């Protein structure tokens, strides 16, 4: 009884969609996800539907499969190839209703094997030799190294983020080494997917920064062309972030909010990001229009 009510409510909730955005589709997906019946999930753990927009290059299929498996069951993948917003919104709500009606959903795409072999050396079987050795629970532990800021030599955590990370431009794979939440080293493993000039539209660029500032509702309003209703927006962006051609992140955000297009010379990402704290780094990336980012990342990748 309670369960049937729950399922009925679940079917009426906005559809939680996690978008894996492919080449050329960034602007369309960003506009689609401001529709009232859809909910832009910030993590796959919160989503029921994986929306794959556009033709993904084969190099990112592995990451897509990983992402797909991270959605909780029951889940559905929808591919969106043409540009019709009405049709895809309808397909999403239908798919959600099917899941609520008890459709089985999709199985994992990757094999159910741990990331690394477990080395059962320690007395309890999960560890290696010594306190920091081995691969306990299938992964090694972080080790100490140099720090770029205060010289305190604590652990360095290396990971690749992307290509479908919600805070990074679609397609960008960054290999970062973090110490705490400060980026010590960054390198571009894959450049962002090419996007048409439409992705540089001031409203979309402003909305990306607004989301990082925690203003989701304001971001949706800006994309729909309504006046911004929020306080302390430009003031919240620190001065001096990603200063290129005499404009910093705050200047570019205020230009976008006044509907002006911004062009910047492509910066050197590997030099721009290290030394900044993670949220500053994300603001730096969001403050660069996609066209500049793509050229910047291509240059770094080639080098």
């Amino acid at each position, binding site marked *: 009884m309670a369960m049937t009510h729950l399922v009925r409510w679940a079917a009426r909730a906005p559809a939680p969609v996690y978008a*894996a955005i492919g080449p050329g589709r960034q602007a369309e997906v960003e506009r689609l996800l401001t529709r009232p019946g859809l909910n832009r999930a910030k*993590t*796959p*753990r919160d989503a029921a539907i994986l929306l794959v927009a556009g033709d993904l290059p084969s190099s*990112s299929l592995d*990451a*897509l*499969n*990983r*992402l797909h*498996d*991270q959605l*909780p069951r029951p889940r559905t993948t929808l591919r969106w190839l043409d540009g019709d917003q009405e049709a895809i919104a309808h397909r999403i709500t239908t798919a959600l209703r099917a899941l609520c009606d008890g459709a089985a959903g999709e199985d*994992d*795409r*990757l*094999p*159910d*094997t*741990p*990331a690394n072999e477990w080395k059962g050396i320690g007395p309890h079987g999960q560890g290696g030799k010594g306190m920091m050795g081995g691969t*306990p*629970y299938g*992964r*090694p*532990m*972080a080790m*100490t190294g140099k*720090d770029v*800021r*205060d010289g*305190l030599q*604590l*652990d360095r*955590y*290396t*990971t*690749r*983020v*992307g*290509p*479908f*990370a*919600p*805070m*990074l431009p679609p397609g960008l*794979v960054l290999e970062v080494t973090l*110490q*705490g*939440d*400060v980026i010590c080293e960054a390198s571009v493993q894959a450049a962002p997917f090419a996007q048409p000039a439409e992705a540089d539209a001031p409203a979309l660029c402003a909305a990306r920064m607004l989301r990082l500032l925690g203003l989701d509702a304001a971001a949706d309003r800006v994309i729909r062309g309504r006046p911004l209703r929020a306080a302390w927006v430009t003031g919240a962006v620190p001065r001096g972030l990603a200063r290129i051609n005499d404009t910093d992140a705050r200047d570019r955000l205020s230009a976008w909010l006044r509907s002006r297009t911004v062009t910047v010379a492509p910066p050197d990402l590997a030099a721009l990001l290290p030394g900044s*704290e993670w949220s500053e780094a994300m603001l730096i990336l969001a403050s660069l229009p996609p066209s500049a980012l793509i050229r910047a990342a291509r240059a770094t990748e080639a080098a």
Partner: protein
Amino acid sequence: MQAVIVILGWTAFAVVLARALQPAANSTAPQAAPFLGGGTPDMHAWQRFHFRPYSMSLLFIAFEMEMMFMYPWAVVFVSEGIKALAEMGMFLAILSVGILYGWREGIFRWQ
């Protein structure tokens, strides 16, 4: 007595509720990998985490310690009158020196 029982009661209630509502978690290996937008980590996330405002946290503890003197002071403030005001003014002035010093040394930011 009642306060302790009520607090214990709410805690027990919340724990029982949480246990009842949260099913046992289960995951396959690919599901259990930490979310990195499709990326993979090289190592465990648990690490000797570099907490950047560490100097601030030390100053904070000292400050918190003396704030504890202020609660009993607040109760007798009106009855002790101007004496209480003067004494606490002196106490806070001494402590503000510590904050000003910390600010000058730049500890209220990420190191």
